[in-house]
């Protein structure tokens, strides 16, 4: 969507900073909102102007401001690590309210900023969360975020795809937000800001992690929750999970398939927790 120059001129007469944001925000209301947040958090007019300049060059707001709220916690964001998305926040918040009170061993794969793991650890005091990522900068940032939110997290730097996770023992739940944009779709579907400023490592992937789920994790866990980008990733997991697994899809608030989850048939604890999570 392009914004026409006459419109930008019109906005510019009101507020030149706003005009810088209108293009990247695709509309005035969002631009106003972002400008307000920048003014709130940066205060100094010179810094706000600089921030607007960065933003007009598609730098994500989360990098400009340095952080992003995620559920009850606040996570730092850096260019080498994926910014937490609201869709993830949505399903994680719903999940934690369902798991309340359960004593679980949880593994968070592809943790990135550590947002999912930290939110789970914060909300489920009885749980023990292990976060795994292959990127050193992600591990460092997750460590940083754990300190920032005063939480203890077990962090492992492992390449999930080539790892036999015997070292972590019993697992009750595997959560993961793997890279799920197919390579050929990246240019077409992803926004410019995402392509320019976020790591491909955290974005581009097709079914590798779902294959890995079926091959490695299903035999070691009682339940799993994986974020997905499209229906066929869900369908893949459903098809390969095997008879003893009950697998379902959860849609996000926009109505897109966003999560594939599953638990072993007959596991009453998880069956209760996932009741009404979404259609099977």
């Amino acid at each position, binding site marked *: 969507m392009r914004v026409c120059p006459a419109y930008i001129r019109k906005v510019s007469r009101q507020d030149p900073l706003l005009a810088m944001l209108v293009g990247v925000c695709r509309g005035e209301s969002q631009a106003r909102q*972002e400008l307000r947040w920048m003014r709130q958090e940066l205060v100094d007019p010179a810094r706000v102007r600089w921030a607007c300049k960065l933003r007009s060059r598609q730098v994500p707001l989360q990098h400009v401001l340095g952080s992003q*709220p995620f559920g009850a916690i606040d996570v730092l964001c850096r260019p080498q690590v994926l910014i937490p998305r609201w869709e993830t926040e949505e399903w994680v918040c719903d999940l934690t309210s369902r798991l309340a009170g359960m004593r679980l061993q949880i593994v968070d794969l592809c943790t990135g900023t550590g947002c999912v793991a930290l939110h789970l650890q914060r909300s489920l005091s009885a749980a023990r969360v292990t976060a795994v990522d292959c990127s050193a900068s992600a591990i460092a940032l997750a460590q940083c975020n754990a300190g920032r939110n005063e939480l203890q997290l077990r962090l492992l730097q492992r390449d999930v795809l080539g790892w036999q996770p015997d070292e972590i023992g019993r697992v009750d739940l595997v959560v993961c937000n793997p890279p799920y944009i197919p390579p050929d779709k990246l240019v077409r579907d992803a926004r410019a800001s995402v392509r320019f400023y976020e790591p491909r490592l955290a974005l581009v992937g097709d079914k590798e992690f779902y294959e890995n789920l079926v091959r490695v994790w299903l035999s070691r866990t009682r339940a799993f929750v994986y974020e997905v980008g499209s229906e066929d990733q869900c369908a893949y997991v459903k098809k390969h999970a095997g008879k003893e697994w009950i697998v379902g899809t959860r849609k*996000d608030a926009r109505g897109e398939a966003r999560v594939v989850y599953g638990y072993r048939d007959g596991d009453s604890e998880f069956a209760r927790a996932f009741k009404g999570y979404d259609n099977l």
Partner: protein
Amino acid sequence: MSISYTIRMLTRRSLPSYGLIARRWSSTVPESGLKLKELHPSLLKRVEKYVEELHGLERMLSDGGSFNDTNQKLYAKVSYIKDIRDRYLEQLESLKELQEIIDEDPSLRDDAQSEYEKLVPELTETSNELLRKLIPPHEFADKACILELRPGVGGIEAMIFAQDLLNMYAGYAQNKKWKFHLISKSENQSGSGIVDAILSIDEPGSYNRLRHEAGVHRVQRIPATETKGRTHTSTAAVVVLPQMGEESEKASDAYERSFKPDEIRIDVMRASGKGGQHVNTTDSAVRITHFPSGIVVSMQDERSQHKNKAKAFAILRARLAEKERQEKEEKERSVRKDQVTTTDRSDKIRTYNFPQNRITDHRCGYNIHDIEGIMSGERLDHLIDAMEEYDADAKAKELLEEA
């Protein structure tokens, strides 16, 4: 020693009768416009119930029990009621005696008459006070409140006025040293005035104080935008809601689960496209629709979706509670089938006239000539006091008619 007591003493002695004069005056003296107004027996019965409660509490105390917080409050209340009742009965008694003197003892009639006239207003005052104490407290009297402000007719001037009102309430809270915060505010595009704002005042009991502010406020002034010096009339609407719970995430999660899934819908207002990892804009706006009541709350001020949702739920909860209360009140009124004048939400309640430096409350007819003091929130108490008194009187009247 009071005069009435003196008179009582004097009447004991027999004095020579001036019956003749008395009879001649009797047609002019007793009805001087002052009539004895006694409380209805059923109301007095209600008072006696409080007194019994007091005795019960005292017994409990003398038995070695101790008061908890609610008992302590109750004790303070009923002992105050008892004090007023005692005063009321005493005054009533002496009035009756005076009446007797007036009727029977011509020699003291003049003194008794003047004393009588002095006592009657006192009695009225006491009985009114007693009545006011009998009015059941407001359902949300101890709650904190949320104020919603919206401009009405009058374009940008109305938006500026809504902003002025917002400043007024913020100033009022500040003056009282009450905690308050702005839940949301959307400004007019040109930067002056507001399209809507929600102010939360976190002091318990602030609802009771501010509930009379709900309604349409009218302003008459020469707007800053006016070039020819004409006075304009614009309005802004204020809604006062009770805070029913915390605005925290935990409270909102619990509250969300109290609804059936088909009762509410939570919408997100997002850009088109694939979503997920494909997009990284901060989309945190939340809209909650409550189907049974048709209430829609949207919130987009925070960067955190979670916080927006918590705020939206807090407001939904407040609106539902207020709505429920209004419906209940409506029902009670229709049961009584009386024609008590009620202030509809569409009625204007107050006029701020800048050229005359005057503020008028249309419900109680109270005038105050200090725009600046009111608009800064410093002297808003005067208006609220007047309105509270008016409301208490109206409620007392209802109570009397009921009895």
